[in-house]
């Protein structure tokens, strides 16, 4: 038996961020020595995803994953009724999942000087103001109206034909986030989940005993147990390919570079630049998700550029690693245990006196 160093919490090397928060050297905290490889990751830029599902197929092929229908039943065809998404969700047999969101546009007529009643996106309201201010409002209103056209220059999701203007398609390839503080890894009682030398999180199939604790511990709902097998499975970031110096299968297959693989810090810089480009082009709804190292999981090894709120894509808006609150829970449990003993002793003493 060993005291597991799976979480940096108990190694004492980073007292500041034992259970959550940024960790500059994830592999080092997990016990790898100084010359480990750089931390790698995925940057999934959903603004250029075309929903081709090449990533899903490549992942299934490379990892020889069994077929699932949208309800998680093995070896069965099923239609989800969710647009073009018949995979449904990430799970034991789907380690990449392409979400399809059809959004119909609400009434959004170009009325530059006076905003439409009750819903002015520019926020300043329809008050006719001084010249400069009005020009400013005009420019902003135009920017928002021209949004679709601005997108069309680089975004294959939007086209200019008449009816399509009423619809926006969001497509996003979801994957295990390979968190800096991974809930699944923290709670695994057998040590089956480990941090690799690349900073990714993988399940060792021969150690997993199918307790299923990792499943509800994941704040993103990624890892899942296979029904007939009982053991847990999830994306390995193609650990077998990484050790041979290859890119993961999904990133290799992606035709639009929506899925980018590389060293995490390079990807982060690339993502920041891409976000700046989009914002300068007026795509105000663009945002990075999982990029912030101060978030609840210490930042993700796989992060995303989204064009809408995370929950629209089925992602939690503010995930927190479950073990962040563990010390408080253990303290409450210790108090509760002491209370049981106290009550029992008191009950015995009280019964004695009466005799």
């Amino acid at each position, binding site marked *: *038996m*060993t*005291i*597991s160093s799976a979480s940096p*919490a*108990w190694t004492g090397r980073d007292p500041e961020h034992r259970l959550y928060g940024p960790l500059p050297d994830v592999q080092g905290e997990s016990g790898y020595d100084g010359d480990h490889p750089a931390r790698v990751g995925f940057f999934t830029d959903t603004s250029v995803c075309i929903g081709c599902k090449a990533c899903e197929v490549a992942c299934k092929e490379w990892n020889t994953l069994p077929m699932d229908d949208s309800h998680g039943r093995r070896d069965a065809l099923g239609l989800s009724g*969710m647009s073009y*998404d018949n995979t*449904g*969700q990430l799970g034991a047999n789907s380690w990449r999942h392409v979400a399809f*969101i059809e*959004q*119909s*546009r*609400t009434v959004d007529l170009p009325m530059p000087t006076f905003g439409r009643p009750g819903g002015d996106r520019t926020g300043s309201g329809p008050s006719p103001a001084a010249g400069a201010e009005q020009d400013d409002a005009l420019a902003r209103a135009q920017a928002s109206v021209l949004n679709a056209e601005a997108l069309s220059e680089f975004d294959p999701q939007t086209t200019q034909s008449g009816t399509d203007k009423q619809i926006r398609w969001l497509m996003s390839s979801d994957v295990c986030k390979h968190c800096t503080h991974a*809930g699944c890894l923290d*709670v*695994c*009682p*057998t*040590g089956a989940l480990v941090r690799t030398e690349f900073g990714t999180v993988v399940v060792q199939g021969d*150690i997993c*005993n*199918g*307790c299923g*604790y990792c499943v*509800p*511990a994941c704040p993103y709902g990624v*890892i899942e*147990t296979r029904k007939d097998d009982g053991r847990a499975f999830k994306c390995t970031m193609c650990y077998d390919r990484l050790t041979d110096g290859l890119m993961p299968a999904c990133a290799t297959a992606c035709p639009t570079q929506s899925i980018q693989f590389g060293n995490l810090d390079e990807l982060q810089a690339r993502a920041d630049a891409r976000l700046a480009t989009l914002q300068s082009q007026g795509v*105000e*709804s663009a945002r990075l998700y999982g990029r912030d190292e101060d978030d609840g999981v210490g930042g993700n090894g796989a992060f995303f550029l989204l064009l*809408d709120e995370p*929950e629209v*894509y089925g992602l*939690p*808006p*503010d*995930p*927190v690693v*479950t*073990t962040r*609150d*563990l010390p*408080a*829970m253990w*303290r*409450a*449990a*210790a108090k*509760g*245990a002491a209370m*049981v*003993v106290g*009550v*029992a002793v008191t*009950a*015995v003493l*009280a*019964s004695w006196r009466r005799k």
Partner: protein
Amino acid sequence: MTAAGGWRQADRGPRLKRKKRGGGGGSRELSMVDDVEFTSYYGRPIIKPPVWKSPEVPLYLFLGGAAGSSAILSALGEFTKRPTLAKAAQILAGGGALGSVGLLIVDLGRPERFLHMLRVFKPTSPLSVGSYILSPFSALTVGAAGLHVLGWFPRLRKLAAVGAGALGGPMTTYTAVLIANTAVPSWHAAGEQLPFVFAGSGMAAGGGMTMAFSPVAEAGPARKMAVAGAAIELAAMHQVENGHGIVSEPYHEGRPGLLLKIAKACTVSGAALTLLTGRKRVGAVLAGALLAAGSALTRFGVFEAGMVSAKDPKYTVVPQRERLAARQNGHAPTVTR
């Protein structure tokens, strides 16, 4: 919240009204929180619901609690001249521990790999810590109960009973941390109250059952523990049901709500009956049965409330949205965790 850029979810739009449950039931319960508006991906759950099986795991939680508090009673009974109470509590603790180990192995799905649990010791994993509480606890209680039945080695038996009693407290409460250290919203939010619910509920069940199986002359401590446990269970459960905004909702709606209402009725009547007729044989048995039923139903209710909160994305998205908004406005969140 309308999605940025003037776009809205196409498939259904924001959900405006929570579905009202069927018209039955005379009392119109006031809604805890305002109806909320939120977006989701086709109403799909965001987190995965636990794969833990339903009769096995709530029963495991119940037996663990009852066994833990019985073990403490039996250790105290051994040294306060209450041989029958000590024996009854010891057999209950041993049986409960054996039962919960069995249920855990059944739930694992790959029983031959139970030993993997003892490969490592991980303080960040309540299941790993729990394995190191459950294993010695069940060995000691089963040993003590066996020695008691056979009447062998009374000193060794007393030693085992003391050891089991020392582990009894952690045994009753670690399961609360086990379920609370998940992303399941209704469990996680109540992480600092559930240990007290489980402690109280374990005492109500352990005290109640010991009282039912002991002669009334010796069962004084069991009666007192049962009543105190019931009171603590009710008080802590009240906090869980009301203190956490929207994620408290599953605790009083639908099936888990019904289970918890019945649980409360059983616990209250069991405690009252203990006080009124606990000194009569029939009264003690009836009260003990009611307290045990209340404790078991509490575990089932808490378990199912968590399942409901995991399956509806509302319980994941809305509190997280509120937390984000609170952070941006620079004041403490109104919804905890």
